[in-house]
């Protein structure tokens, strides 16, 4: 007897077109199983999950031929299952926790909702749940509000809430999409541990094949509201039968490849020891200065792609803004050969919604007498029709909007184009289209890209050289291939080990990622290496001194492990090797 058995689930929305988002969806889940559900965004994954939970919005319709849970029929009373037997973890933990209630209260109310117990018992159980979800010092966390803890921690709280009543099935809907790579790895590890320890079945929904491959035993592939293929992880990833699955797997694997090496061209941009300070208001009368960027030196050459990776909040965007001239650096020098333009992460947000495409494109250049030809030429270059210039941005799809954004940036003939997370909001198939398109443009115009992303696979696929950034400074810089094969800096190593590959066998060989949790930076350590608090190799020196950016041929690394004092015995002329 399977745990959950669903047959012919249909969901539609009662708007003008009565579109059916889920049609005749049927699948089963066994006890204690870890199942993945993969599909492009908009294929009806989330609607199906909300339907199973009975959480669909009012303007939608729902029908289901068979809804068996532990062999019992629940077609008409799905609500009775939720929270108790089936629990759910959502995508964006920041939105799903009530900002005005303490974490402890949000947990205990779940427990007391289904079980009769005293307040004290509920509190004890809540603390137990929080430590099971990998949260240290649960007692202090219980008294905090959601805005006082980090994003990863919030998702752990949501998971703890889901586990409150020992459900038989947990549905996790894109639980890691909004999180950083290292946190993503930790959350997935946590889910895996929970499923093994408590024998809870988990249904993990994701658009990312890497996520699915790293934890799931069985995979369902969904396309346009239907399951098109079903099988073990190995079957799906190594012997896909359905053409759609094949295409998905192929595209995901294609991104894994390393970019081709290129000849170094002319120098187009050089930055020397750029630094930037932000003043922050701690309280109404106290401010503190935070160094958003620290000693950033690098150069870019004609026709190359320079990748910049780092987790959110590490200063990537600030650096991009300094390079384009929106912000001016507080220290250091910056030189560039030609114009620097930028493509923003969310193309839609970078267009004024009241402007037509023509107006948007024309804003990028000074006023001229005849500009129709230029607009037409540019639209053709990015693969759009000349008639499109009368349309508004909302009439285009995500991929087309990104093309328009690139077209606008190219209007003023820049030498360098900064691409700030250009594909992270796009589907895997659109993603590869845009990446290919960017490549073509580079071939044609010889423009240089600064490619910023948190997605390590995409950066690897696009860039010849990369820099790894952490808390405002470059930790390591060099050839993409050599850094990915053999990371020198402890942070790079940690970051790269968090990469998820769409390859279950490789994923299973991986060790669990262990990351030290830093609660608060100790007094007097702000001067040291920013990574020292989390570094397994940290020496006393790391906490008090800021390391140099040591150079070895075309590779640079900011770590005392590579200082002369540490590697002094090295023979002159011998190549540097990884010290970790």
């Amino acid at each position, binding site marked *: 007897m399977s745990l959950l058995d669903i047959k012919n689930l249909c969901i539609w929305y009662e708007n003008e077109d009565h579109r059916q988002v889920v049609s005749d969806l049927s699948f089963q889940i066994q006890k204690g199983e870890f199942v993945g559900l993969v599909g492009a965004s908009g294929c009806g994954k989330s609607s199906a999950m909300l339907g199973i939970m009975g959480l669909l919005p009012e303007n939608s319709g729902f029908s289901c031929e068979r809804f068996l849970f532990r062999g019992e029929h629940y077609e008409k009373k799905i609500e009775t299952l939720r929270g108790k037997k089936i629990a759910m973890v959502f995508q964006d933990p920041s939105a799903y926790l009530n900002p005005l209630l303490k974490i402890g209260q949000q947990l205990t109310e779940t427990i007391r909702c289904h079980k009769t117990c005293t307040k004290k018992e509920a509190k004890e159980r809540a603390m137990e749940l929080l430590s099971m979800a990998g949260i240290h010092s649960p007692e202090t966390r219980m008294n905090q509000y959601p805005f006082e803890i980090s994003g990863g921690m919030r998702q752990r709280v949501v998971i703890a809430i889901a586990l409150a009543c020992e459900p038989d099935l947990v549905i996790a809907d894109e639980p890691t999409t909004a999180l950083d790579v290292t946190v993503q790895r930790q959350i997935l590890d946590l889910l895996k541990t929970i499923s093994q320890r408590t024998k809870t079945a988990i249904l993990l929904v994701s658009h990312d094949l890497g996520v699915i491959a790293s934890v799931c035993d069985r995979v369902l592939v969904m396309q346009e509201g239907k399951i098109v293929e079903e099988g073990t992880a190995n079957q799906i990833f190594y012997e896909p039968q359905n053409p759609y699955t094949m295409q998905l797997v192929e595209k995901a694997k294609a991104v894994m490849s390393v970019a081709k090496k290129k000849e170094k061209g002319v120098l187009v941009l050089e930055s020397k020891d750029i630094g930037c300070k932000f003043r922050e208001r701690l309280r*109404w009368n106290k401010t503190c200065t935070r160094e958003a960027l620290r000693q950033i030196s690098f150069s870019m050459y004609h026709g190359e792609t320079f990748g910049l990776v780092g987790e959110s909040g590490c200063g990537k965007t600030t650096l991009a803004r300094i390079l384009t001239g929106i912000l001016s650096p507080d220290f250091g020098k910056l030189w560039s050969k030609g114009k620097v333009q930028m493509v923003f992460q969310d193309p839609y947000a970078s267009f004024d919604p009241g402007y037509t495409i023509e107006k948007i494109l024309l804003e990028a250049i000074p006023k001229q007498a005849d500009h129709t030809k230029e607009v037409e030429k540019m639209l053709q270059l990015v693969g759009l029709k000349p008639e499109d210039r009368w349309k508004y941005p909302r009439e285009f799809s995500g991929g087309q909007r990104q093309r328009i954004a690139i077209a606008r940036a190219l209007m003023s003939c820049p030498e360098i184009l900064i691409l700030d997370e250009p594909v992270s909001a796009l589907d895997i198939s659109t993603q590869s289209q845009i990446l290919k398109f960017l490549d073509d443009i580079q071939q044609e115009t010889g423009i240089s890209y600064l490619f910023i992303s948190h997605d390590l696979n995409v950066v690897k696929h696009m860039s010849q050289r990369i820099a790894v950034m952490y808390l405002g400074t470059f930790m390591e810089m060099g050839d993409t291939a050599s850094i990915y094969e053999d990371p020198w800096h402890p942070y790079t190593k940690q970051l790269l080990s968090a990469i998820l590959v769409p390859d279950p066998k490789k994923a299973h060989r991986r060790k669990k990622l262990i990351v030290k949790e830093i609660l608060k930076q100790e007094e007097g350590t702000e001067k040291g290496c920013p990574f020292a608090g989390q570094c397994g190799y940290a020496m006393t020196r790391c906490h008090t001194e800021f390391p140099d950016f040591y150079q070895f041929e075309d590779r640079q690394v900011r770590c005392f492990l590579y200082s002369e004092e540490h590697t002094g015995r090295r023979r002159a002329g011998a190549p540097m090797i990884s010290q970790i």
Partner: protein
Amino acid sequence: MIQYMIKRIVIGVLSLFVLVGITFFLTRAIPGSPFESSNVSGEVLEMMENEYGLNDPVIVQYGTYLLHVIQGDFGYSYENPSQSVTSIIAEFLPVTIMTGGLALLLAIVTGVSFGIWMVVSKQKIIQRALFSGTILGTGIPNFVLALVLIFVFGVKFHWLPVAGGSEWESYILPVCSLAIYPASVICRMTAHLYKEEMKKEYVVLAKAKGMQWERIVWKHVLRHIWLPLFNYLGSAAAFLLTGSFAIESIFTIPGLGSQFVHAISNRDYTLIMGLTIFMGTVVISIQVLVDLLGAWIDPKIRRSYEGQ
């Protein structure tokens, strides 16, 4: 939190200074004010001159006046010099507070409950009727409403007394005509906030936890509704106080409002000044209090001022 309190109170005190300043200088500019006119009885003029030092420079006079005001001394009524403004305020304040307080209470209770009813109700007729009611409620000026109520309940049907008396029935009409505007505003606000909050993701999570609808509303949603509603109370208080001018004189209730109108029609400038400053002070204090309590309710503000 103490720092936030200090900051908010400083702003309140500055507002008071501006209020006193504007009142003082404007009143001085009035043609035929007691400070300049010749038709004032010698006795009063002498008293004024002694009190305010009329031969000093204006700034010094302002300072002296301010000093008096801080001590709660607004001078003597121009029309009735034997009575100090302070004693008039003390005499008429309780009635105004009572009607205003009752109206506020009525507005909150009916506003919130009708607001939620308006959204929750499945019947289109009830929704529409309530919504049209709020549109009308904010559309009718309170003095017009008072007259209409008098006309209907007092003159036509003789159900309720139309003029001031000490018995409780005579307060029904004034309290109602004061309360309807803020009640309509609160009703619409509640309905809007409730609808917006029910769309939020945290409600979905609460449902996913398996919580009952009533508990979700009570434990989660109402908390979010309270905060903006609470902030509205400041302006509601201002509205009720100024509304009392008309309502009290229409229903001949012996309160501060009717005194103020009386003072205006008699051009009793010291009384006008005193009452203006006093009422301004009341409104400013209520606003400061509401802000402080609002900050106390909102954990984000509270935590950002708590220690580190």
